[in-house]
């Protein structure tokens, strides 16, 4: 016993110089938990082991330490109640600016229903996504719920083929997300406005959107495209539940753009060739491809102007106008409004033609500079010939002895 006490003293001396808990009995045995815990925000706020686990922190040995209102390691269901005992209390959370609806949300989620109603212990509880002891702020890059860590956190279960087989869920979501526009924006460009898993599915209330919800989920960010979509025939069909909203043409986790030259192919998935809808799709593709080409040639024209030493501020400003119209083409595609599309494509084409014209004039003037060679060499050769004759005359007449 005295050996145990001595060990406990040493462990305390090693583990706890900064915190004033040298008299805290739990770390006599659970030094590893303490090391994890002190990094987190709970430790900062003065929460101690016994606030969650109960027991007697002033005792240094079993069984005295595990007496009292001792909880130990709570089970999955008990964990939800335990966390909720503080986090569902608005009066306690208000001071930290934290929401208090997580447990209520969790009950509505697929995770919560499986755990709390189905008593399925494979379903996650709070501590499966947030660590039990290392509770970090979401803006701490080490946190499991930091934006770039969320996909990995979800993948801990959702990439587990054996586990997902039980719920008949696919396991390729995270992989496809990484390659998607959203994944590239998040990981490569560190753009935290880009949605992670929880951006579309919700975090505590995690559920896949239903068919009629999909368009609304995407429209939260893609507002203008969403408005255009709602105006068009596809939007009406989506809200009637006849097509799966945006997923008719784009995929959910892959979220790839339909390239300009593949628009008609996307239409052909539902509309047979020769139908008026497919003809409209072909028309839209033609406009989009043309506008892309026009925009590219406008870029080339600006580069040419720049190389010729022209000031390109005005040209770049006009290019921005063309770019805005071009982006609006992408929106107009979603309403299938051919007239608006034609109008926007015309704007792009007109600006591009102007810029090409400016580049052409600059190029022509650069070519005209070469015409200077004609008078220069005429004068030079004439002077040389005259000088040569003058020399012959002078030296023939005894200029040189």
């Amino acid at each position: 016993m005295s050996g145990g006490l001595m060990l406990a003293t040493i462990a305390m001396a090693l583990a706890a110089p900064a915190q004033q808990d040298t008299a805290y009995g739990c770390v006599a045995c659970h030094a590893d938990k303490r090391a994890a815990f002190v990094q987190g925000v709970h430790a900062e706020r003065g929460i101690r082991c016994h606030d969650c686990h109960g027991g007697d922190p002033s005792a240094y040995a079993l069984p005295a330490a595990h007496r009292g209102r001792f909880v130990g390691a709570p089970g999955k269901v008990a964990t939800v109640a335990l966390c909720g005992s503080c986090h569902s209390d608005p009066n306690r959370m208000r001071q930290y600016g934290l929401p208090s609806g997580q447990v209520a949300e969790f009950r509505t989620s697929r995770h919560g229903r499986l755990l709390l109603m189905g008593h399925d212990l494979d379903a996650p509880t709070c501590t499966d996504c947030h660590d039990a002891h290392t509770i970090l702020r979401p803006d701490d890059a080490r946190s499991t719920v930091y934006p770039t860590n969320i996909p990995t956190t979800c993948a801990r279960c959702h990439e587990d083929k054996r586990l997902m087989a039980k719920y008949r869920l696919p396991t390729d979501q995270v992989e496809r997300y990484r390659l998607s526009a959203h994944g590239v924006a998040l990981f490569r460009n560190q753009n935290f406005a880009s949605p992670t898993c929880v951006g579309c599915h919700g975090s505590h209330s995690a559920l896949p959107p239903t068919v009629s919800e999909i368009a609304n989920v995407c429209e939260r960010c893609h507002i203008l495209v969403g408005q255009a979509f709602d105006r068009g025939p596809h939007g009406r069909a989506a809200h009637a539940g006849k097509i799966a909203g945006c997923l008719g043409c784009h995929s959910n986790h892959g979220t790839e753009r339909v390239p300009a030259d593949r628009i008609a192919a996307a239409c052909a998935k539902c509309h047979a060739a020769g139908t008026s809808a497919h003809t409209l799709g072909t028309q839209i593709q033609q406009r989009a491809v043309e506008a892309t080409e026009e925009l590219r040639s406008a870029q080339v024209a600006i580069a040419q102007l720049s190389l010729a030493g022209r000031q390109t501020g005005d040209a770049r400003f006009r290019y921005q106008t063309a770019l805005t119209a071009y982006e609006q083409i992408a929106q107009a595609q979603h309403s299938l409004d051919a007239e608006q599309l034609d109008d926007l494509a015309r704007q792009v084409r007109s600006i591009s033609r102007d810029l090409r014209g400016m580049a052409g004039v600059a190029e022509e003037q650069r070519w005209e500079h070469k015409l200077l060679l004609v008078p220069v060499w005429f004068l030079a050769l004439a002077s040389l010939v005259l000088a040569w004759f003058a020399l012959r005359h002078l030296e023939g007449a005894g200029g040189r002895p």
Partner: protein
Amino acid sequence: MAGRFRRATAKWAAQFWADLKASTDAGLLGILRFLGLLYGPIDARLPIDQAFRKSLGYRLAPHVGWRHALGGITYLLFIILVITGVLLSVHYRPSAQEAYPSLQHIVSGVTLGWLIRDLHVWSASLLVLAVLAHMARVFFDAAYKPPRETNWLVGVLLLFLVLAFGASGYLLPWDQWAYWTVTEALNALATVPLVGGAAVAVLRGDPIVSGATLSRFFAMHVIVLPWITLALVAFHFTMVRRHGVAPLRNATAEPGRGRVFFPSHLLRSFMVAVVTCAVVISAAALWPRPVGEPADPAKLPEIVRSTWVVVDVSRALTHYLGAWGFVGFTLVALGLAFVPLFDRGPERDLRRRPAVAILGLVFFVGFVAAWMAGRQLRSGPPPEALPAASEASTPPPAAGAPLPELGPTPTRAAPPADTTRAGGPR
């Protein structure tokens, strides 16, 4: 009293008229005198006219030929650079904000601004070639031997000034090519032991190439270097007149037996000048220096185009021979510069001076070869850090390579993405 004054005035007027008539003979000088430009009545008291006639009648050494025009071509190119440089300075603004726009204005807004600017660019390159050709002529003719060794060393100093002119002028366009070439050159200079770091700190004036660097380079280019050069050129020419043109082979100098300066030699000089000017104007009109993207310290350009012959040579040397190749070639050049201190014998025949001939051949042929090779690298990718550059100095952090792209950390090897599938809600 009044009578005396009238008589004196009349006498003076009569004398003036007589002087004017006497000095106004037919010929070029006569016309100048008639217009009052030259020594008419003044010459009655001062013998300027005679001095002028004497100097025009100066006879050159008989062996003076076309190859002695190389020094004159160099001087003419220098004059072109001074004139175009003054014109450029009217519109150029040496600040990081205004340099690039003012350059665009010169090239596309100012009347004939493009010509002035491209003449300046091309003269700067051709000047280096002309200087080296002039030096090669002097070297192989052994014209550096006593008593002319001082003038050779002055010439070497002038070569360094030409290089300093080009290096300081290189940054002024303030486009990406200029910016990153200067950054690279300063990083390389910082690796020189002992003095490199301090020299770069003074030249750059900031942890990266910035507006402070631009001001320093501009002040060097238009104020410091021109005055030093002017003084040295004056000294160089005075020494040439004092010593005369070096004799050929083992012959002794025979002044006064060759061609007369005016008009025979002057007409020949005129022909050389006409050809030089026509060549420079042609090069400027046919191959204008393009304007790169504006300088951006945060972005490495995809290509760096070199626009000065010396940069071509340096890039070729470091690219094909490495940093030590560059150092070795510089040592050969320095050896060449100090040959006159050791090679002082009377022998002037190249065949009897094999060691000196080989040294000269290595340098001059090597320079031309490196230039040709460097032109192939003109539009290459940005200059990389020299292999030997890492230990000796700490290059500025902001001017280094861009940060590596942060990609997602794959949890396992990714199979090709299935982009055609549009999955439904799950």
